[in-house]
């Protein structure tokens, strides 16, 4: 395998404590090595450019049935943006729900080496893995959803943590999943009854359990198993004005829990797309709606066992898709556009609705402000991560623009000055008071070091330390630049990107489809006759498929698996 030596770049690595020093970075046999360890390296001159480890995305919707529903029912999403294949690149198309190949190229151009598909319905795991397989370059994993699963609800109702854990371990193995996703706990099951859970103490119909019990139960099961990642929650009441109280209550559920994981994470709860959960007021009007980002961020700043990602609204035309079925119905009644809704048998549900975040409305710009404020209030960038909940708050390829907004007050003010209700947003949100600008060092934590650590992959990704995966990106950005537009350009147009020791982008051109891997967690637990019996019984009674048609065969579906083994036998 080729050796690479990247010279003269400004290096940012929060794990090694390198903050913009000129540093030589070397890769050999697919891993990072000390610069002295390479002999015949191809030298890349990164003079005047920024060098970081490959990015790690903790939460995006990039593969699975929701994506395909979005693709199928939004042919107009591909209108006028299809590009024919060229060289090693497959043809691509799509704006908010692009083709799988485009996802791979977008991530490469942004210098990302690992991404987490944030919600995989276990029943459709096979399809999810087929899409992951067809997404080139980037290493991926998927989080199966558990928060409305009948097995989980029944076990947790009686606080049977060991059974819950055994079932989760079985699902992770059957679906080749990575960890525990928890979407609108209880609320999505309630949606099957035409209802929702509007607080963490609402009863889930029939199951007689509350969202709070589901959240704490899944935290306990997660720590019982000692999984690499923590319980990953999208709380109740997403998008509702006044929901910050529910959010604070949900976050408070993590109190007293300590991580039990050999993978180096500190958190027991990851709160995703916090922007959608930090609203005050009781309506979307500028008279009532207000940002509660400060209140929520202040709480998280004081906790050491919670991480979060942002979900910044990018003010684009996009497609929302979530396992939060009732929310999508609510959204479709607001914007009167098309709506797709699915019930996934015993497991979950999903909805898809196109959405336009319009610059000329108050609420879209206020949502934009809330997302950025959370990052600007967060004290520790190792706990606060950049996402757009792609494509929910904005298309995936908008990350560079979000980076621009985070790094430049001038760029934020341009949006506010340009927006019709910019002054009202300054009035109802905190954005106008915040002059903080995220540094490249902090950005490296928010986009790779912190996310890798929170996913339990800190021993592979997020740093340039010798022994880590050979994922390095060179952005054509000089830290001395004063033009915010340079930031947006550079972070979307990596000059060089080396992934697993292989040159993916050379001088701005994608030259290889890489050696894409699918990560999954193989968790060993004690034999559990009860859970085995329940699984067989439920499949016989309720599922439309048999057990043999459920399992995701590693050989068939994961051409290049990376198995992470966890031993939870006690």
């Amino acid at each position: 395998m080729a050796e690479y030596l990247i010279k003269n770049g400004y290096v940012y690595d929060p794990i090694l404590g390198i903050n913009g020093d000129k540093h030589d970075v070397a890769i050999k046999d697919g891993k990072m090595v000390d610069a002295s360890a390479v002999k015949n390296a191809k030298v890349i001159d990164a003079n005047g450019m920024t060098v970081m480890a490959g990015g790690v995305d903790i939460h995006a919707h990039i593969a699975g049935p929701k994506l395909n529903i979005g693709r199928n029912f939004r042919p107009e999403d591909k209108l006028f943006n299809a590009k024919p294949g060229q060289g090693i690149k497959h043809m691509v198309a799509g704006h908010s729900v692009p083709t799988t190949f485009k996802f791979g190229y977008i991530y490469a151009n942004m210098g990302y080496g690992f991404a987490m598909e944030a919600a995989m319905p276990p029943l459709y795991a096979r399809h999810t893995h087929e899409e992951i397989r067809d997404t080139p370059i980037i290493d991926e994993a998927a989080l199966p959803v558990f928060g409305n699963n009948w097995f989980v609800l029944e076990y947790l109702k009686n606080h049977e943590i060991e059974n819950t854990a055994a079932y989760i371990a079985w699902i992770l193995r059957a679906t080749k999943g990575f960890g525990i996703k928890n979407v609108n706990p209880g609320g999505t099951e309630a949606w099957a009854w035409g209802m929702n859970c509007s607080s963490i103490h609402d009863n889930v119909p029939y199951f007689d359990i509350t969202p709070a019990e589901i959240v704490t139960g899944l935290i306990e099961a997660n720590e019982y198993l000692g999984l690499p990642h923590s319980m990953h929650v999208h709380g109740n009441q997403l998008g509702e004005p006044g929901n910050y109280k529910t959010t604070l209550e949900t976050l408070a559920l993590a109190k007293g829990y300590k991580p039990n994981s050999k993978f180096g994470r500190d958190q027991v709860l990851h709160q995703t797309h916090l922007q959608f959960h930090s609203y005050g007021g009781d309506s979307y009007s500028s008279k009532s709606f207000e940002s509660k980002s400060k209140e929520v961020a202040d709480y998280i700043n004081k906790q050491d066992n919670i991480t979060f990602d942002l979900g910044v609204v990018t003010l684009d035309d996009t497609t929302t898709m979530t396992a939060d079925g009732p929310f999508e119905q609510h959204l479709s009644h607001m914007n009167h556009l098309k709506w797709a809704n699915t019930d996934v048998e015993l497991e979950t549900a999903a909805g898809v609705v196109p959405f336009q975040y319009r610059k000329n409305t108050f609420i879209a710009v206020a949502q934009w402000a809330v997302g950025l404020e959370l990052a600007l209030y967060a004290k520790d960038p190792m706990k606060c991560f950049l996402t757009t909940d792609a494509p929910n708050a904005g298309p995936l390829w908008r990350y560079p623009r979000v980076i621009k907004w985070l790094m430049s007050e001038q760029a934020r003010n341009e949006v506010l000055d340009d927006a019709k209700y910019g002054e009202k947003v300054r009035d109802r949100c905190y954005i106008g008071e915040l002059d903080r600008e995220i540094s490249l060092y902090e950005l490296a934590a928010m986009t790779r070091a912190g996310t890798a650590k929170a996913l339990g992959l800190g021993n592979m990704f997020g740093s340039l330390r010798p022994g880590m995966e050979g994922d390095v990106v060179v952005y054509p950005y000089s830290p001395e630049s004063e033009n915010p537009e340079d930031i947006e350009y550079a972070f979307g147009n990596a000059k060089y990107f080396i992934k697993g020791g292989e040159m993916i982008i050379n001088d701005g051109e994608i030259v290889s489809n890489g050696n894409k891997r699918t990560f999954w967690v193989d968790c060993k637990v004690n034999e559990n006759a009860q859970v085995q019996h329940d699984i067989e019984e439920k499949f016989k009674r309720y599922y439309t498929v048999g057990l043999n048609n459920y399992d995701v065969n590693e050989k068939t579906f994961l051409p290049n698996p990376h198995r992470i083994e966890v031993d939870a036998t006690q």
Partner: protein
Amino acid sequence: MSTVTLTPTQVPELYLEADNITPDHFAGKSAEEIAALNVYMGNATYKLGDYFDVEGEAAETAEETKIVVKGDVSRVKYIGMKMSAGEVIVESPADMYMGAWMLGGKMTVNGDVDAFAGLGMTGGELTINGNAGDYLGAAYRGDWRGMQGGTIRVSGDAGSDIGTFMRGGTIIVGGNVDVHVGTHQEGGTIIVKGDAKTRVGGQMVKGEIYVFGDIEVMMPGFQQREDVEIEVDGESGSFALFEGDMGERHPTRKGVTTFGKLYMKY
């Protein structure tokens, strides 16, 4: 105004996609440069000059450029697509997507056109001296942003699904139309001087539809309100006004509830 004349030299084996035939693409170009523009067939790319003789040259701007297409283009799609100014005259029947996504200027087809003429149009004038196919002035598949401005005038009949998701502008059909007129209409005006079949104004929220002839089957979601004496496209007469579609939402603004309006001539 400078005129460029295109004369087809051969009939394409499949269908030719010629979205470069617009005053915008021709502006500032000589005949040779115009002949060097791309056209597409299947997965292959050809030159405009492979299929057309090009005479004359374009003006510096689209406004001052006129394109005349002489000869059979019944297997050519996308002429005048996204044109913003100037004039296009097609002297024969043409295929799909004539004047689609037009922004401005004038386009005239002296012959029948196939489906999707004036699709997603936002401005300008599209005149079809012949019959139009389905999806005249409709929205692109899946899109909810249909025709938003401009005028489409068809002297003959039109097919089904005209004005789907229409939000503005005017469609005038001199003859009869097939099923589904103004489905999901949220603005604009559709005038049918002949007869309509069924499902006129289904899921309509706003805008107007005028039918001079008969409607074979009225949508159950429309309620008759009153008789009105009005002038429509230069013809005055007495019309029965219906409002609907009652199965849809009815936005209320400043105390006034909006309905789609359907006028039937007595």
